[in-house]
């Protein structure tokens, strides 16, 4: 806590596009209300000063190289509350797309003969390395959900991530189902909380918040194939945001 009794908040980013921090800045007026309740002590993208003394750490981005490990561990050791911000941090997100390849092969595709300069390993979400207290899903995040989670943190209560599919929110908004219009959509298996923003604009859900806990993969695969995707393409669609192929925390600990 700062002397004024306000929690000290820090923002950190690992491999990502920093778009989720931008979404936070887009809150505009609501952001000022949020800021009034805390002290922002580290936000490298916006300020020169930085502090190693903070209570709440927002972490954006995936863990993708050996040098990231001590850095995220230090953040975990310092912060009382660690929040994973956005798909890269919560589920690995788009960065995990490279895990389909052997790392040497992926590096060769991008850097060719110079690949040896760079250190990298399979991309992974933050909780593959250290425990995470709160998850704000999405690529990018939904700013309204950010505010909800922020209030939960300040009040010291848990935040329950919705575990019903995007379809529920989509129907509540009165949208015509995209699948009925012939557009392949991942809504039936994707975790809600985004206010069905993409389908509301007539664009298919790509699953950026990760899958619900008991997704009906077979039924979704059939739907996608009915709408023109081959079985290989269905696998590709499922893998844009969710891709395994990295060691989990328990395995690393052994």
């Amino acid at each position: 806590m700062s002397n004024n009794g306000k929690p000290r908040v820090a923002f950190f980013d690992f491999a990502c596009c920093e778009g989720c921090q931008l979404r936070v800045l887009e809150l505009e007026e609501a952001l000022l209300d949020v800021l009034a309740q805390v002290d922002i002590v580290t936000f490298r993208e916006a300020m020169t000063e930085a502090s190693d003394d903070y209570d709440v750490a927002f972490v954006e981005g995936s863990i993708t190289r050996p040098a990231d490990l001590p850095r995220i561990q230090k953040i975990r050791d310092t912060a009382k509350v660690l929040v994973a911000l956005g798909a890269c941090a919560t589920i690995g997100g788009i960065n995990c797309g490279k895990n389909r390849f052997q790392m040497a092969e992926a590096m060769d595709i991008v850097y060719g003969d110079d690949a040896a300069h760079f250190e990298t390993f399979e991309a992974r979400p933050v909780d593959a390395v250290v425990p995470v207290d709160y998850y704000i899903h999405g690529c990018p995040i939904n700013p309204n959900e950010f505010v909800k989670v922020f209030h939960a943190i300040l009040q010291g209560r848990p935040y329950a991530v919705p575990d019903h599919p995007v379809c529920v929110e989509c129907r509540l908004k009165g949208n015509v189902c995209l699948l009925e219009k012939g557009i392949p959509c991942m809504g039936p298996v994707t975790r809600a909380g985004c206010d069905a923003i993409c389908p509301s604009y007539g664009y298919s859900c790509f699953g950026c918040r990760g899958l619900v806990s008991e997704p009906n993969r077979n039924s979704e695969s059939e739907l996608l194939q009915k709408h023109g995707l081959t079985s290989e393409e269905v696998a590709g669609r499922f893998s844009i945001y969710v891709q395994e192929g990295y060691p989990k925390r328990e395995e690393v600990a052994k």
Partner: protein
Amino acid sequence: MSEVDMHFEVEHLTRVEGHGNIVLDVEKGEIKKLQWQVIEAPRLFEAMLRGHRWDEAHHISCRICGICSVSHTCASLRATEAAMNIPISEQTLKLRKLIFHGEMIQSHVLHVFLLVAPDLLGAPSVFPLIQTHKDVVLMAMRMKKLANDISRVVGGRHVHPITLIPGGFASLPKRSELEDLRERLEACKADLTATVDLLATLKLPDFVRETEYISIRMPDEFAMYEGSVYSSDAGPMPLDRYREVTNEFVVPHSTAKHAKWHRSSYMVGALARVNNNYQMLRPEAKAAAEALGLKTPCYNPFMNNIAQVVEVAHCVLDAIDILDKFLDKGLDREAFKVEPRAGRGIGVVEAPRGILFHDYEYGDDGRIVKANCVIPTNQNHESIEDDFRALVPQILDQPQDDVRQALEMLVRAYDPCISCSTHYLDVNFV
């Protein structure tokens, strides 16, 4: 001066997008080491794109960068559309140009006011300016919000826009939203005047290094969304030979690639565009350039910030024009259908930080076989180091903190976007 020793390392330079370091090592007046190190984690987008469908490519590649995701979306769509010969309508073209203006204004306003202005007003960040220069901060927020709303109205949101798809738009803005934007853009003219007046009072470092400037160019408009490749040294270059322009190479101290063409480096971004295409700017933007002392060709990289303000003026006026046409004729719900096929396509646009190429090769099944993305910030890394090498000997007699500050400001003037180039920035006095 010949006896000067100076060593410093600025690690994780602040107020830039991404992570990078500056390292300077001087012994007895001789520069031993002077580097701009990009240490962002490699993200390997070119590998990620492989095997993905034609309707997934832009969805994935726009996520290279949160600040310029509209530019990446459009470069990607244009590559896909070129590869598969997908036509787009005049309305789609205009809507894409409109959302481009939104992104350009937002990115430049964010950079000039939030990241650079603290240096010029002697503050460590924008936060103390809320107390000391409240009107300026509120004005910047107002302009940023307007720009953001342009992107939201056209694209659904600015960070990773939703409605832009191969061949057209998934949904269209409402008339009332366009009217609201039109009204606020009109009001924004006063903010533009105030911005020019404010910047006219601030002094930028006086430093000159002539170099090659590369951008796209159109015969009859200030090119941002489309155009041919143009060099201030060599004139026009066909797009399919873009690799001869960028000549990307790898340096050991950086996870980002560097680029060069006719000289040891070249510069891209607002200053390159204004230098190459000054004649095509709107009169109001030219007036802003004159008021701010930007005469082309301009060889001072710090003036990139001024060129950004000139472009903001251009974009505001051009956005008003586009909106007037939409409000006059209304928007049509257009039907379009894509037939995927094999082919190679190159999409080139001007992102806020400079020329951006996406180059895709598709197989018969409409899936990506090969992808190459050349990012503006990468094209500037070598130019930043060349500027360092020219600037440091001129200021070595100054105290170390001033030298460090000058180098930090120089990097910020380029507005590097390191997420794009891979993603990171630090300055190190060794």
